Each structure stands twice: as structure tokens, then as C-alpha cells.
């Protein structure tokens, strides 16, 4: 599909967009925290992707490449304008894995809380957690996108994870004490 899109096949390009735009939009939303900004950044990212597609060689690494473009667009935009802090619509996050009703109820609370905790991190910490922990970029790649050294990525990551831990411990004391495991 990527190869066909590279050769200018419009149907392949539409398929490529259809198969990836939700993930791209979700990443933008997690970084920017605002649905309108995220939609705008996603469009801009696809325009840049189209311009660079001919020169793109590692076809298998398309999602990683797209995520990097989205992250770069978002970070550039966020540096340009002061961030409008509209909370992310957590309840619109969907889990593709079907669960039974009880698991779904527990999962909904957990994922909702986790998403809220990530969103409530200061931007310097949130961006590192989103890129490194959620989207699996390396320390070098994360540093490149954010314009900081891998060492600084490490420091921010440490602080961000500890903040998340503290948030989750407050909301799920049984998780903190490990009681849920003992009784399981």
C-alpha cells in the first residue's frame, strides 16, 4: 500500500490515510490536549508526509515515521502558540479489544484515570511520556523531536513516571499495596 501510494496511486493513498489517521489524531490529541488543534496538526502532518513519501525508503517503518512527523508538527505548533488547556475527551477513547462487562467497567475506570493522569502532567513531562512510553520512541528519537538531549529525556521521564505513579496510587490504593494481586 505504501509503495503504491509512493507511485502516485490515489486509491492507495486514501487507504493509507484511512488505516492510520485515527492513530495519528490520537497522538496529536495526547500531545496537544485540544481536539481542534489535534485535527489541524493531523492534517498538516499528512501534507508533510505526502511531500516526503517519494523519498521514504523503509516501507515497514511507516507508522513510526508518521508518528515522528505528527510529533514534530505538534511540538512546532505548541512552541508557536501558547497552549490552550482544554481537557481531552477521555471518554471518547476506545479499546479495540472486546472485554466482558465487568472487565469493561473496571477497564473503563482504569484507562480513564490513566488517560486523565497523563493529560494532567505538565507539558514537559507529558510529551516525554507520550512519545517514549506510549509510542515507544527511543530516547534519541524523543530528544530529537523535543529538541533536548537523551539525558534530559531520561530525567524528565523519571519525574513523569513518578508523578503518574503517585496519581494512580491515590486513585487505586489496592494497586499500590498489591492487595488486588494477593486476593486474585
Amino acid at each position: 500500500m505504501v509503495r503504491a501510494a509512493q507511485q502516485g496511486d490515489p486509491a492507495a493513498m486514501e487507504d493509507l490515510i484511512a488505516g492510520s489517521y485515527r492513530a495519528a489524531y490520537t497522538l496529536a490529541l495526547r500531545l496537544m490536549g485540544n481536539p481542534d488543534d489535534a485535527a489541524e496538526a493531523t492534517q498538516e502532518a499528512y501534507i508533510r508526509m505526502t511531500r516526503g513519501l517519494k523519498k521514504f525508503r523503509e516501507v515497514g517503518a511507516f507508522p513510526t515515521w508518521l508518528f515522528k512527523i505528527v510529533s514534530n508538527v505538534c511540538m512546532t505548533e505548541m512552541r508557536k502558540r501558547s497552549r490552550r488547556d482544554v481537557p481531552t475527551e477521555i471518554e471518547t477513547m476506545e479499546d479495540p479489544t472486546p472485554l466482558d462487562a465487568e472487565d469493561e467497567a473496571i477497564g473503563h475506570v482504569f484507562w480513564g484515570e490513566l488517560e486523565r493522569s497523563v493529560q494532567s502532567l505538565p507539558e514537559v513531562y507529558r510529551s516525554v511520556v507520550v512519545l517514549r512510553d506510549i509510542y515507544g520512541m527511543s530516547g534519541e528519537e524523543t530528544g530529537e523531536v523535543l529538541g533536548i538531549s537523551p539525558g534530559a529525556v531520561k530525567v524528565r521521564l523519571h519525574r513523569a513516571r513518578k508523578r503518574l505513579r503517585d496519581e494512580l496510587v491515590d486513585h487505586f490504593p489496592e494497586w499500590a499495596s498489591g492487595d488486588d494481586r494477593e486476593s486474585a
Partner: protein
Amino acid sequence: MECREVERIIWTDGPDAVAPEHFVECRTCREESRRAADLQAALTGMRNRFALPPDDLERMIVDAVSRTRLDWARDIVSHPKFWRGAAVGAAAAGVATAAIGVIAARRRVAARPEVA
């Protein structure tokens, strides 16, 4: 290794970066390691959870991308380099055609039987 150092490593490089012997003897660090591993797994799982995008986003992206491709093609065609290249190409093609014509004509002349 001290617990404070172990805790720093757990939250920076992950629980796997700590020598497992420490966890055998220290319950506190073992628990902290479990929490770090849980959190790491949950964060990784977030990658597969998608937000609902605006209804018209896909269409807007497709339109924007199509416009970009058209603009790109127009930019190429309207750039002086393109026409310079086209002119050079046409001239080269003309020269090549003429050369082939000359060669073919010479061969034809050479192949013609001499008239006494």
C-alpha cells in the same frame, strides 16, 4: 545497592535494569518494581486505544493531500528549471533524431549498387 538507588533505576531504566537479587531480599523494592512494570505495561497499552476523531477529518485529510499533490505537480511544471530541462530534452531528442537520420541515409547510400 541501596534502595534509593534501586528506586531511581526502576523509574528511569525500568525494573529489568536492577539486579534481581535485590528484589529477593527487599519487599519494598519488589513492590515498587511491580508498580513500575504495571504502569509501563498500561502506558504501552494506551497506544492501541484511539480517540474518536471529528467525523469529517478523514475527508479533510484526503482533500488536503490531493491538493498538495496537484500543487506539487503545478509547481514542477511552472518552475523555470522544468522548462529549461524540457527544452534541453527536446533539443537532445532533435539532435539524436537528426543523427539517426544521417546514419540511416549514409547506410542507404552505401548499400545502393553502383551504377556503371
